[in-house]
């Protein structure tokens, strides 16, 4: 019942033919791509063709657990979902926590590769080696919470783990998500709609097997040591105490609290959005870990008044309180808990849901929308009732206006017209996360080159702020000098972004949470490589780890090149490039088009990509050993 972590297995599921089959991953491939996100990138490239319809049966969805997921490596319980995004028409990797990734591995699987589409609603039941495609017609239309409960009852096992879509995913909302049991969400890029297009309501899994490492004792000791140093990190302490929204006061002070659809960087009563407020006022009733995590940043909260009925649910995260809160001009804590609950249950990404509504609110206030065109909703900033109603309507695509918003901000702005594209906070078709990139140049560059669109969840360059000695050390290691730990500088940004890309990709492939290696730094390339080596029983060093990360980033880029994306697509939302920070500590700051162009020149050159087109050079692919995978798109320069 136990197997070595080096022996990886793919569960292939063809939903059209209702067939499943098993496929091993050669160990050499695992070492080359680091597993998880890396193998998923290669599989997606190989198993799809250019121009594949993201919501058609030929799109492929890859659920991948990290290579160390299920071991005692700290905070290594994460997994990913990879497919072509219906929001962007480009590469989509979504990382997610919780317990599903580990459960899948204990069931004997490292990857679940879904292709085809079922003719009627089904769910996938993985009970160790027993895999079954089951009828889900009775679950279709139900919320994620109820579906999770019903699956537990139906399968007679409270300990199953589930990945479930809600009505939004069923109805093809382009920012629908997949909820992992209760606390976690694979959110971005419309990953829920891809699952819905396959008529797959849920994956339920129960695993009773085990995993072994090649050098068990040494692996255990190193991982334990890392666990304790991670738990002792000051960043972890704050994440434990207040969760991700504990950084609201800090963002406020830095003048980076994205508000009113990014037209402001501060909002009155911002403290009501904070994790401190959740704790102090008694909204917080529990803290939750992902599998194997020593930080426990997730929250479980409830409402205190009866205004909205008694609501309790997981979250809200920092991005949720910013996107559904400050960006929509809302600081009513309870209203936010309700909006968060709505998104979780309906199965929608809170970042995009918040930003498509904040865009609509600004458009309404500028009088390019009216009550007639919003189906009767008074969409002023701060109107919580209107926001809640709109969230429900979007999930069910009820009425012409909600149906329009369900297709994302880019499409909505094209339809509404006028100048509304100027305040559509999106690039590549993805709504930007509520991170102000104008005063942080590595962030701006990283967001622009992000293959899935502008957010902090493919690469994050937190170290450039130089808040701690550890982060300044990281910047010195990358650039040779601590002085570059300054987000307003434009020098060395390409180097900083590329280093973080490599580390971030490797971190995720191994299953670690990126907080451990790019926010706290107790997990680093050195000890990750050591664990990889001890776990798999192969000689492996830091350089190989970073190279594995680079391969992932390059294959992901090549996927987008194959879809027709070029340098012109590596942009930021118009407001981020054209409107200066209005007030606060960063007043007057901007990363404009010309500055971004200079950063991009450096970045592409550093990567060995053609600077004019952003297409990887053949020589670069050769150097990385990727010619056999994505040589078809190489730039012959």
């Amino acid at each position: 019942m136990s197997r070595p972590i080096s022996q990886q297995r793919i569960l292939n599921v063809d939903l059209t033919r209702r067939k499943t089959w098993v496929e091993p991953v050669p160990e050499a491939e695992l070492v080359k791509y680091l597993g998880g996100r890396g193998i998923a990138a290669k599989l997606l490239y190989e198993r799809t063709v250019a121009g594949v319809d993201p919501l058609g049966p030929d799109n492929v969805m890859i659920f991948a657990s990290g290579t160390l997921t299920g071991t005692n490596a700290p905070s290594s319980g994460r997994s990913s979902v990879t497919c072509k995004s219906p929001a962007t028409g480009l590469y989509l990797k979504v990382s997610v926590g919780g317990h599903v990734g580990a459960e899948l591995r204990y069931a004997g699987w490292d990857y679940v590769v879904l292709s085809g589409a079922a003719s009627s609603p089904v769910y996938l039941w993985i009970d160790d080696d027993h895999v079954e495609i089951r009828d889900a017609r009775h679950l279709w239309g139900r919320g994620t919470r109820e579906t999770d409960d019903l699956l537990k009852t139906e399968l007679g096992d409270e300990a199953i783990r589930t990945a479930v879509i809600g009505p939004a995913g069923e109805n093809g909302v382009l920012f629908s998500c997949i909820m992992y049991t209760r606390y976690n969400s694979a959110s971005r890029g419309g990953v829920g709609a891809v699952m819905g297009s396959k008529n797959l309501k849920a994956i339920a899994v129960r695993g009773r097997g085990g995993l072994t490492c090649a050098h068990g004792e040494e692996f255990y000791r190193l991982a334990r040591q890392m666990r304790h140093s991670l738990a002792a990190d000051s960043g972890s302490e704050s994440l434990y105490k207040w969760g991700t929204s504990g950084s609201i006061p800090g963002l406020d002070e830095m003048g980076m609290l994205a508000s009113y659809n990014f037209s402001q960087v501060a909002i009155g009563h911002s403290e009501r959005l904070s994790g401190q407020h959740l704790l102090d006022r008694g909204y917080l009733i529990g803290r939750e870990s992902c599998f194997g995590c020593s930080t426990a940043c997730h929250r479980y909260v409830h409402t205190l008044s009866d205004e909205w009925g008694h609501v309790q649910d997981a979250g809200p995260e920092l991005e949720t309180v910013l996107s559904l809160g400050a960006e929509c001009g809302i600081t009513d804590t309870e209203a936010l808990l309700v909006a968060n609950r709505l998104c979780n249950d309906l199965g929608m990404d809170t970042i995009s849901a918040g930003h498509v509504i904040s865009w609509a609110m600004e458009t309404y206030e500028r009088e390019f929308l009216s009550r007639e065109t919003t189906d009767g909703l008074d969409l002023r900033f701060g109107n919580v009732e209107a926001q809640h109603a709109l969230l429900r309507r979007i999930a069910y695509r009820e009425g012409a206006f909600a149906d329009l918003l369900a297709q994302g901000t880019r499409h909505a702005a094209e339809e509404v017209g006028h100048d509304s594209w100027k305040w559509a906070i999106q690039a590549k078709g993805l709504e930007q996360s509520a991170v102000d990139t104008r005063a942080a140049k590595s962030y701006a560059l990283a967001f622009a080159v992000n293959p899935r669109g502008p957010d902090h969840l493919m690469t994050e360059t937190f170290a450039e702020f130089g808040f701690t000695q550890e982060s300044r050390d990281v910047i010195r290691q990358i650039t040779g000098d601590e002085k570059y730990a300054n987000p307003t500088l434009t020098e060395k940004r390409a180097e900083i972004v590329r280093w973080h890309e490599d580390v971030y990709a490797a971190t995720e492939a191994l299953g670690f949470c990126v907080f451990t290696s790019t926010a706290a730094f107790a997990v680093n390339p050195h000890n990750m490589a050591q664990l990889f080596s001890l776990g798999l029983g192969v000689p492996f060093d830091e350089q190989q780890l970073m190279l594995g990360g680079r391969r992932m980033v390059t294959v992901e880029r090549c996927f987008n090149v194959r879809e027709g994306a070029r340098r012109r697509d590596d942009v930021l939302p118009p407001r981020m490039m054209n409107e200066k920070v209005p007030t606060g500590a960063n007043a007057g700051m901007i990363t404009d088009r010309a500055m971004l162009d200079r950063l991009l020149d450096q970045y592409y050159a550093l990567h060995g990509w053609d600077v004019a087109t952003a297409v990887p050079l053949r020589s670069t692919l050769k150097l990385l050993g990727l010619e056999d995978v994505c040589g078809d798109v190489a730039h012959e320069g």
Partner: protein
Amino acid sequence: MEAGIINLTIDAAKCTACRACELACSFAKEGVYSPTLSRIHVVQVHSAGVNVPIVCVNCAAAPCIPACPVGAVYRDLRVPVVRIKEDECIGCGACITACPFGAVDRPLGKDVALMCDLCEGEPACAVDCVYGALTFDRAYRAADVKRWAVAKATAARVRES
């Protein structure tokens, strides 16, 4: 195991369900990472946001001891911890039936019942718990510590009033 009583104290309110205890246990006992083979299990009650670690609590009147038809479950009087003689266990599951907590189990592929033995005095699960949900000490020290915490809180209130 050192002389004296060892006690594992569980504080469910502090448990975040990271399940490091399950991994520590299965690795210490079986050399494998497998929650199924762990002697401790974290049960997540999702609808309430509460996590409850469940493990043998060494009942004073342990019902598993008289339930065992072959006398394989016994109390180690040195400590005194309830143990299973694995070489005498016939894997009938009578102890599983008798245990009111579900703390004893015989997972698929195992011929004997698995029960926590407090790792010879240094429980691996508690060593790896960074949240303070699992702690170990001499028995009754737990109540002692709690008494002091309550007394100090009371003292502070008395001083304030």
